[in-house]
């Protein structure tokens, strides 16, 4: 039980911090001038040169492996609902780390999505 909780914490924290690092890197990269193949390739080139992107990748890889290990210990109907906590943790990170503005409607939406994912995965 304790090892489940610990690995779940690793999973949630690594996936959200990885995604936050990648978001930060992409905002710093700036959006592609237009959504055409050449412009998107140039954007990708710039993004791959961004340190925050490369900080995010190993965190997301670690989150992926913790998910695999957790799935080998517990049924999926426990693992996915529990990891739906990431929606709330990610929103807190977006607010306090990325400085995004979370309106009441957005908070309400996040909480509903979190509960909804938990119910869908629980079967």
């Amino acid at each position: 039980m304790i090892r489940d909780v610990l690995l779940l914490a690793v999973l949630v924290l690594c996936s959200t911090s990885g995604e936050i690092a990648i978001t930060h890197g992409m905002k710093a990269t700036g959006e592609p001038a237009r959504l055409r193949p050449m412009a998107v390739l140039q954007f990708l080139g710039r993004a791959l040169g961004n340190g925050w992107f490369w900080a995010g990748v190993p965190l997301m890889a670690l989150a992926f492996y913790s998910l695999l290990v957790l799935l080998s210990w517990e049924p999926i109907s426990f693992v996915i609902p529990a990891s739906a906590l990431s929606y709330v943790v990610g929103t807190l990170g977006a607010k306090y780390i990325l400085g995004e503005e979370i309106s009441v409607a957005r908070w309400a939406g996040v909480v509903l999505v979190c509960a909804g994912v938990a119910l869908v995965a629980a079967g």
Partner: protein
Amino acid sequence: MASEHRLRIKTLIMVLAMVVCANVGDLMLKRGMTQIGAVPLSLNGLQHAFLLTVTNGTIWIGIFFLTGFMLSYMTVLSWADYSYVMPAGAFGYALLTFLAVVFLHESVSPRRWIGVVLICVGVLLVGQTKPRTTTEVAREATA
């Protein structure tokens, strides 16, 4: 505001691309791994399974779609909020349930339907908020 409308449309298109690519990619990986069969956890078994995966066409189609997912995810995050994109991506769970009912004729429990409704309402609520709340100035400061 015209630019706000444009922002909303292109965000919506990218989120849809993300959801479709992620789900098709996962489905192809699952189908490919089913063709390969259970992987024995021995050195020989892993070597053999590795060879089978890199020569399996279905696995490569899956990798292609998952690369498309990562690319659309990175692109949309270059202009939209993380707290906007992340919950919107959960629409995939609802979509999978509909697909399972329509194509695989799976029966879905009432609890799962309630979950699908909550996700759809949640995504609609988030979708109504402004896709981007941080400013260009903040971006330059972090660049």
